[in-house]
């Protein structure tokens, strides 16, 4: 289904849609306060963008360096061309060690690869341990946001879910008590797990170390208890130097939730004593993205979610309306990069306001990419016929000043005599808002009047 169709469903429950909008704006406001508290914020963003540009230009070298250093520390490094190869590698590691119980901390990559269902089909118990992720996992849903997976749910819904799944008392909706129930439930899972799977926030080329950031401490519990740790990373997670981490750790949590840093920023160099560390490096379409110059920058994404929180379309349409692993502005450029036909409506889920690019800590040109996608989709015949007709008509009018003036005049006359008519033409846009009043005289006419005076 297209984004407008799915968004329509989301806004049917007007009260929920407004609540969703407000919740995310609250996070956005926290991000603003945190960013403004740092005088060198813009300098940090520039540095982050420059480091990521350098990484793109030298990625093959950095990956080889990372691999060599990681091996020196005793990690086993695997390479996976695509999602299927990634899942197979993880499964082989687990199977050969007879692992049946796995705890996982948040990783958008394993979400992208569909690792959970793959392992579950093979009889493993895979428990997502980030609270939000656990909530959506128990509901058999994907995350609706990359940092706040259950942002679309009310506390009462979580209460009902926990009553059903964890046996909490009926009617419980206090976030503190619900969190406590989840803590107890997950503590058991941690203590019983035979392996921990995590994502990777940053992989340091010069030291061969990986960095994982969480607030709950779930990645640390998941890797400190079981003897086997599998860390899955996309090829783009590389930073060249340990010192670069200063730039990224200063930006990440402030951009994501307005915190000065995540509660836990853990650096791992090799396995813990007596344990095993496997690092799976995954391509799954990323080298293809690298080859497309207009979209290359999106490989720099550090998955902070700031562009989602600020996006007027995401806030009002919800994560599921994108039907993509990653929603929001960054998802709208990554989606068509992966499968243009399937995600053709996403670059249009954008007002081109540019707020995403303004908040992005690595300065990805998101709005420009989404604009660029539209022309690519038109050229390749993938945009909807209605949009193509409308664009052709607009282009015709814009290119002929006389025609433009005539049409504008007609619109003003119609708007004055029959206010409903313009709304009918604009259909969807005026369902929940009115057009601003259209002045009776055009700018040009008003200017001429002034000239006469």
């Amino acid at each position: 289904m297209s984004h407008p169709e799915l968004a329509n469903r989301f806004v049917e429950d007007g009260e929920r849609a407004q609540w969703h909008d407000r919740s995310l704006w609250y996070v956005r406001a926290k991000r603003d306060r945190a960013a403004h508290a740092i005088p060198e914020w813009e300098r940090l963003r520039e540095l982050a963008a420059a480091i990521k540009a350098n990484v793109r230009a030298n990625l093959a070298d950095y990956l080889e360096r990372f691999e060599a250093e990681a091996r020196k520390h005793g990690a086993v490094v695997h390479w996976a061309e695509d999602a299927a190869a990634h899942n197979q590698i993880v499964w082989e590691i687990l199977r050969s060690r007879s692992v049946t119980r796995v705890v996982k901390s948040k990783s958008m990559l394993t979400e992208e690869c569909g690792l959970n269902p793959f392992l579950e089909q093979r009889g493993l118990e895979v428990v997502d341990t980030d609270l939000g992720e656990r909530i959506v996992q128990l509901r058999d849903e994907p995350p609706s946001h990359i940092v706040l997976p259950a942002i679309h749910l009310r506390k009462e819904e979580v209460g009902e879910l926990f009553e059903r799944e964890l046996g909490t008392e009926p009617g419980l909706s206090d976030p503190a008590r619900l969190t406590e129930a989840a803590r107890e439930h997950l503590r058991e899972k941690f203590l019983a797990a035979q392996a921990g799977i995590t994502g990777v926030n940053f992989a340091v080329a010069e030291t061969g170390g990986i960095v994982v950031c969480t607030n709950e401490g779930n990645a640390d519990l998941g890797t400190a208890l079981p003897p086997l740790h599998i860390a899955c990373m996309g090829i783009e997670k590389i930073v060249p130097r340990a010192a670069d981490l200063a730039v990224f750790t200063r930006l990440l949590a402030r951009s994501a939730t307005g915190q000065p840093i995540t509660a836990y920023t853990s650096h791992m160099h090799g396995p813990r004593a007596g344990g095993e560390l496997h690092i799976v490096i995954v391509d799954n379409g990323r080298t293809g993205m690298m080859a497309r110059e207009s979209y290359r920058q999106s490989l720099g994404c550090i998955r902070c979610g700031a562009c989602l929180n600020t996006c007027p379309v995401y806030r009002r349409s919800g994560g599921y309306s994108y039907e993509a692993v990653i929603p929001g502005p960054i998802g709208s450029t990554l989606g068509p990069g992966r499968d243009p036909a399937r995600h053709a409506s996403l670059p249009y889920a954008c007002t081109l306001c540019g707020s995403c690019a303004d908040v992005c800590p690595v300065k990805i040109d998101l709005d420009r990419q989404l604009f660029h996608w539209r022309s690519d989709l038109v050229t390749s015949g993938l945009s909807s016929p209605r949009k193509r007709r409308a664009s052709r008509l607009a282009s015709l009018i814009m290119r002929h000043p006389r025609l433009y003036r005539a049409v504008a005049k007609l619109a003003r006359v119609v708007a004055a005599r029959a206010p409903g008519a313009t709304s009918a033409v604009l259909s969807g846009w005026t369902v929940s808002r009115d057009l601003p009043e259209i002045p009776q005289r055009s700018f040009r006419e008003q200017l001429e009047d002034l000239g006469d005076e």
Partner: protein
Amino acid sequence: MSDRAGILARLRAVAVEATPLPELAGDWTTSTDPAAWFGDVLASVGGDCRAVADHRALAAGVEQLCRKLAATRVVSEVDGVAGALGAGEGGGSVAPSEVQLAIVRGEWAVAENAAVWVSDAMVTERATLFLSEHVALVVDRERLLSNMHEAYERIDVAACRFGAFISGPSKTADIEQALVIGAHGPRSLTVFLVG
């Protein structure tokens, strides 16, 4: 072609404009009173900072904390603190999942984000840091820095298998954005600044 060779070949086949790795040296924000800054930020992330003059004051502070938390199963990895309390030495006698309060030395503290660097070298069992109900970190005041750039300049992150910046207790806001302290890990985090 192996997956590895394929990935590297595809990357090398793309000509990406070369850009230099930027210099990180900069005029980063510092403070003349980092201890006050650290304390304020730590409070804002749900932690508690106690300044103590010396090791004797530290022992008294820890004792007070134990009373406040009604903690009897205490593990200390800080010299001179455990003995005074009769607590388990070096984490030996109490299983990590049973620990009520763990006292661990932090090597560096960063004021801008209240993060304390703790590494494998400071704990017998890594899990202690995350399984204990409460954690207290002990840092020398002279090891208090202003910002993360200073921290990464001084810390050799590759020297230990595990090292973490810990900023406040474990927390979540995954249910309706309501902040809840004590998600999976410690429910409180106290930092003793010594000196």
